[in-house]
């Protein structure tokens, strides 16, 4: 058995992919499979919880009683924001450090340790929530206190993920050392690196906040200060979502490359944007504390602005370079008519491509714009803890990241699990069903929230201050939730069904979902030096900027209408 981490070294356990010709490390493959499958199981659990919650906040239905509402809300947050996403991201990390670098995963033992810790932690947390010993919301804000197993479970998940991240970094190191590749790592790996670096910051905060809280819950130490708890917890809680952003953007580059042949229009620009994420995106955890006592205006303004919006600049860069890469690839294939002629030739029937476009649009237009606006210190006064906040993060984490990951699954299952999808017609519709459902849900939340409806509240009627309009929007939330859940369920059934019944791919390429063919007379790379080729993207991004400016200033106006306060 070879001890080199170069996949090309003789005796290294690997295979050559029948579709792409790239090398696949068999160790990485095993752990991609394990982590992806477990992730999708937690996605399903979190999704069932989501349906129950949506049908409760829709006041007309009001399905769950109060105690179960708060219990299932805790369960939903943990399963979606921590378990589903971290497991799937570890799978992405293992892919990104091996195949693109022709490298072998650093250690099988480390991968097992990571997986087992994360799995035990996840099961522990889910169990203790469902038996009613942790009705504290995912944030478990002190002085609310859960059973010690709740904190221990989260600690295990955090440490397990950190171990997986270590495996990623170690693989990068030995791949370079053993000459598995020369030159710079590709953009997909670089995006994964950004995600991994942010994960380190995230998980360090998780350890610092959860360990003293665990020891307090065991009665061994004093209660940590609630304001301190919020500060450090959000170092875990929001940072983990920034890991999602990096992973999602890396997936955008990956899928646009596989489906359309796109590549970064300027490597320096794309990579610098990831570096801005690495340095500054974590500062914005401050936006959870904008109307808190104790932390002052300067700290709030500097940190919530991601250091003068440098990390927002990064998102706006990717918002240009991802569509630009797609447009350039299409124009080079000969689809050059007018400003948007290339759009109709895009592989809309390819579910991975559709998921990516939906993810870019939903995350950018809806998620990014609302996020930056709500995260403005003063505007947060009219938004904190209202349903506007979940309205924002459902379009980013769900409409953005989860939808992109679903798109990725349409290639991971054929290429890594080596099975072609069943019910391909249904698969082509699934991203649209899910994307439209989540968008409706988020609209319902955002409009109800702007009318003052709270998040995390079982019933709005007891207060007697919310009228028919608020109820209408909660109904929209309910309908969106039903559609989104259906889209999620279809996805899970397709994946599970394919793993059991899908046609095995051995010694051939996967069944093509559809990629646009190059027209006669076109040459790849023909537009490499035309820096004004991407007219469609330019128009789209300027429209985006206009929408941003309108929404942003409209919110300042809404703020100016409330009572003066300091």
């Amino acid at each position, binding site marked *: 058995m070879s001890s080199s981490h170069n996949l090309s070294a003789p005796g290294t356990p690997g295979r050559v992919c029948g579709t792409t010709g790239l090398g696949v490390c068999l160790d990485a493959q095993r752990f991609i499979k394990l982590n992806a499958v477990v992730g999708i199981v937690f996605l399903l659990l979190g999704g069932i919880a989501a349906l129950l919650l949506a049908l409760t906040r829709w006041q007309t239905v009001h399905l769950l009683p109060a105690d179960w509402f708060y219990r299932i809300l805790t369960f939903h947050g943990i399963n979606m924001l921590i378990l589903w996403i971290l497991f799937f991201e570890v799978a992405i990390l293992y892919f990104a450090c091996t195949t693109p670098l022709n490298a072998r995963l650093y250690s099988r033992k480390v991968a097992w340790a990571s997986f087992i810790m994360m799995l035990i932690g996840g099961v522990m947390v889910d169990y203790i929530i469902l038996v009613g010993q942790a009705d504290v919301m995912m944030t478990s804000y002190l002085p609310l206190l859960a059973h010690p197993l709740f904190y221990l479970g989260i600690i295990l998940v955090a440490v397990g993920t950190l171990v997986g991240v270590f495996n990623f*970094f170690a693989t*990068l190191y030995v791949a370079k050392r053993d000459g598995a590749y020369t030159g*710079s*790592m590709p953009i997909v790996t*670089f995006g994964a*690196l*950004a995600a991994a*670096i*942010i994960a*380190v*910051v995230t998980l*360090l*905060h998780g350890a610092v906040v959860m360990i003293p809280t665990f020891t307090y819950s065991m009665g061994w130490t004093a209660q940590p*200060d609630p*304001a*301190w708890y919020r*500060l*450090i917890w959000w*170092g875990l809680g929001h*940072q983990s979502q920034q890991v999602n952003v990096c992973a999602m953007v890396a997936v955008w580059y990956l899928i646009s490359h596989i489906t359309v042949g796109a590549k970064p229009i300027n490597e*320096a620009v794309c*990579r*610098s944007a990831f*570096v801005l994420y*690495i*340095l*500054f995106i*974590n*500062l914005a*955890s*401050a936006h959870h*504390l904008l109307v808190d*006592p*104790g*932390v*002052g205006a300067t*700290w709030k303004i*500097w*940190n919530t602005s991601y*250091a003068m919006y440098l990390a927002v600049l990064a998102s706006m860069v990717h918002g240009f370079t991802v569509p630009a890469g797609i447009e350039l690839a299409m124009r080079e294939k000969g689809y050059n008519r007018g400003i948007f002629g290339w759009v109709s030739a895009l592989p809309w029937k390819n579910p991975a491509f559709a998921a990516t476009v939906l993810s870019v649009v939903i995350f950018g237009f809806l998620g990014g714009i609302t996020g930056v606006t709500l995260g403005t210190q003063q505007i947060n006064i009219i938004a904190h803890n209202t349903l506007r906040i979940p309205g924002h993060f459902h379009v980013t984490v769900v409409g953005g990241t989860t939808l992109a990951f679903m798109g990725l699954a349409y290639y991971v299952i054929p290429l890594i699990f080596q099975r072609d999808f069943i019910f391909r017609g249904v698969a082509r519709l699934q991203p649209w069903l899910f994307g439209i459902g989540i968008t409706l849900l988020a609209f319902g939340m955002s409009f109800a929230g702007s009318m003052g409806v709270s998040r995390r509240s079982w019933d709005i009627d007891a207060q007697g201050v919310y009228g028919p309009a608020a109820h209408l929007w909660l109904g929209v939330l309910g309908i969106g939730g039903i559609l989104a859940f259906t889209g999620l369920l279809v996805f899970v059934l397709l994946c599970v069904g394919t793993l059991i019944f899908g046609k095995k791919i051995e010694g051939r390429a996967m069944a093509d979902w559809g990629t646009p063919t190059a027209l006669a007379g076109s040459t790849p790379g023909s537009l490499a030096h035309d820096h004004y080729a991407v007219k469609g993207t330019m128009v789209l991004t300027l429209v985006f900027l206009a929408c941003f400016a309108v929404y942003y200033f409209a919110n300042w106006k809404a703020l100016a209408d409330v009572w003066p306060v300091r």
Partner: protein
Amino acid sequence: MKNEPKIHPWQKLLDNPWLLLVLGVLIPILSYTVWGWVELLMTKPALLP
């Protein structure tokens, strides 16, 4: 050796994952965590007449 193409200094930084790891951990911890923690520690006791 003389024929190796010159690599731009910015590319050298971006090609160094370990430096990015150190900066990516230090900057947020100082700007968000440590600064925020100090602000909380400096909160004065209330004067409740």
